[in-house]
């Protein structure tokens, strides 16, 4: 909730700030600058570069302030770490009361530290001081009655903490945390948790980067990062290539021949809406969990998309182009090679982009289910050991790779089919 509020606040304040100062450093000089109607005119709405940059920065900013990262100068209040103390009052079987202190030391998870020392006290009643060590975001149970004189007698009980009365299942706020009493009458100290996220939920960005470097160099579970990602990419490419190899000719045949279209239409139309992930169990039963299974799955994921795009590409050839080619003396084969195939390339490329995206998503999911190596395998293995930094690193890498694949396809499209959308 707080995160959302801060995010909205950043959004609004940077927007207002940008509006206030933007006219100072550049006046709009493009074509839409002279337009008076911009609300509702889609063509005059362009993506604001500054907004994109600030958007990304603010995401990292939020990530930083809630994880105590080194990348942000300010942070949300962190958990209490260090030494603190509180006192309690106990009553014994005789009806006498006595006060004692509990000395607490709080450290981070994974750190090695000792219980604090108890200073000597001259006038001591039957209640004796205690020492407790606990960890940030955790709580520590202390049985104060154990070292108190008469602590095991029936009438003994703790009646107050820091002078405030306490009963079982109640809690009292003390310095740097809260003390609560269990049903059986023991005390439990919970240090102040702050507003930051615990690293096992969300590690700070630098921890993720550090993990990235560590895993890129040493690998994770004896598999290097390059190997993991390489295997995922290899599966995607193999599945996509096999799918295209069968799918594109099949699509052409369906676009050019009645029998082929009639024969394969029901199959394609039935298989197309099935999400490839739904095929994972069957593929595992048939082909096992090894490469053959995954490549078969990706082949099926790419096949229908490529078939449909090739068929659409053939249908998209304007009849006047085909007529023109015939009356220029081209044979059927020449029309296929020189007219139908080049004319269907834009559609096929669009299909290829979709297929690559689907394959990339499917391979990660398939690796989550069962794999020896791969990006998905890496993050599912890390999640079992609560290595959240590796999980986040993996997710970011998967995103970057998926995005890069799409960008590469777009680049290739621009180079290979410059006439797209200009016909």
């Amino acid at each position, binding site marked *: 909730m707080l995160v959302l509020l801060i995010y909205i606040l950043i959004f609004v304040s940077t927007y207002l700030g940008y509006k206030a100062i933007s006219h100072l450093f550049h006046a709009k000089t493009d074509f839409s600058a002279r337009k008076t109607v911009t609300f509702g005119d889609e063509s005059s709405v362009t993506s604001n570069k500054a907004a994109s940059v600030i958007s990304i920065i603010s995401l990292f900013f939020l990530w930083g302030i809630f994880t105590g990262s080194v990348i942000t100068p300010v942070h949300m209040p962190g958990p209490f770490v260090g030494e603190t103390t509180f006192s309690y009052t106990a009553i014994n079987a005789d009806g006498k009361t006595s006060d004692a202190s509990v000395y607490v030391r709080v450290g981070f998870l994974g750190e090695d530290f000792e219980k604090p020392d108890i200073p000597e006290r001259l006038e001591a009643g039957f209640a004796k001081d205690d020492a407790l060590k606990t960890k940030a975001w955790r709580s520590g149970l202390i049985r104060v009655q154990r070292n108190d004189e008469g602590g095991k007698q029936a009438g003994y009980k703790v009646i107050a903490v820091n002078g405030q009365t306490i009963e079982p299942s109640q809690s009292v706020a003390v310095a740097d945390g809260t003390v609560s009493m269990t049903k059986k009458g023991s005390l439990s100290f919970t240090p102040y948790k702050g507003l930051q996220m615990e690293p096992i939920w969300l590690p700070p960005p630098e921890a993720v980067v550090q993990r990235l470097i560590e895993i890129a160099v040493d690998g994770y579970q004896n598999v290097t990062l390059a190997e993991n990602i390489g295997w995922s990419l290899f599966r995607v490419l193999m599945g996509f290539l096999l799918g295209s190899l069968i799918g594109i000719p099949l699509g052409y045949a369906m676009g050019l021949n009645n029998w082929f279209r009639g024969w394969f239409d029901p199959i394609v139309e039935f298989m197309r809406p099935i999400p490839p992930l739904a095929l994972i169990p069957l593929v595992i039963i048939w082909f096992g969990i090894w490469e053959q299974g995954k490549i078969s799955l990706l082949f099926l994921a790419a096949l229908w998309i490529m078939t449909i795009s090739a068929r659409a590409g053939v249908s998209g050839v*304007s009849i*006047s*182009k085909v*007529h*023109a*080619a*015939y*009356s*220029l*003396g*081209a*044979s059927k084969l*020449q029309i296929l090679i*020189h*007219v139908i195939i*080049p*004319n269907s*390339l834009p559609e096929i490329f669009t299909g290829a982009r979709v297929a690559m995206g689907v394959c990339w998503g499917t391979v990660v999911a398939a690796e989550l289910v069962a794999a020896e190596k791969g990006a998905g395998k890496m993050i599912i293995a890390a999640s079992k050991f609560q290595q959240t930094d590796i999980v986040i690193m993996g997710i970011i890498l998967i995103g970057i790779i998926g995005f890069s694949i799409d960008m590469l396809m777009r680049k290739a499209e621009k180079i290979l*089919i*410059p*006439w797209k959308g*200009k*016909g």
Partner: protein
Amino acid sequence: MTFTLPNGHSIEALKNVSLSLKKGEILSILGPSGCGKTTLLNILAGFLSPTHGQVSMNGHPVVGPAPERGMVFQQGALFEWMNIRDNIGFGPAMKGEPKEKTKKEVDTLLETVGLHGFGEKAVYELSGGMQQRVALARCLANHPDIILMDEPLGALDALTREKMQGLILKIWQETGKTIILITHSVEEALLLGERLLVMAPRPGRIHKEYALPFAKLGTEKDLREIKKHPDFSAKRDEILTMIWEMEEEIMGKKA
């Protein structure tokens, strides 16, 4: 020519259309929409086979598209994935003619249609008028005996259209090709038709035929001069009235 519709009804698109053309003639076909002009042209080109009757050319029947009958379409029939040179040289390339020879021929044709130096451009870099010049040149490169044009200037603006009309006449005169041209514009039909067929709808048939002097004149004089010719405006009014009457008849039938 009868089309059977999916619902079992049939439409008589053309009925008793009979015409013969001499080599080197230029014929324009005019008529209200739905009179079967395009169907007629598709039959002539060999893209449709008629339900009755036949088309013969050079003494043999027409059974399908062939390079002896070149087509120029309204628009969008160029191959965007090839540059202008390859578009024009498509026909010879399909026949497997030597590249050097084709290159020279394409250069000459580019000159003829006024696109010198545009050979290496992409199709989408050219304006609509220029693209139609390319379509014309592509058709000529194949040395057809007859050129069939289906509203070749229909998508062009008035100014470009006038220039292109001059170009068609020039090509007709220089190459002596037989040309059949379909148009919606009465002026264009008058200017580009040594013979002019006015067709009537329902069923599509030849309504009237004219023999006109304007195409011949157009090869010598400026086209705008011809339009001032008293016969020109008289013929134009006559034909316009005729077509208007047909249109009104259709509307009347509908109502």
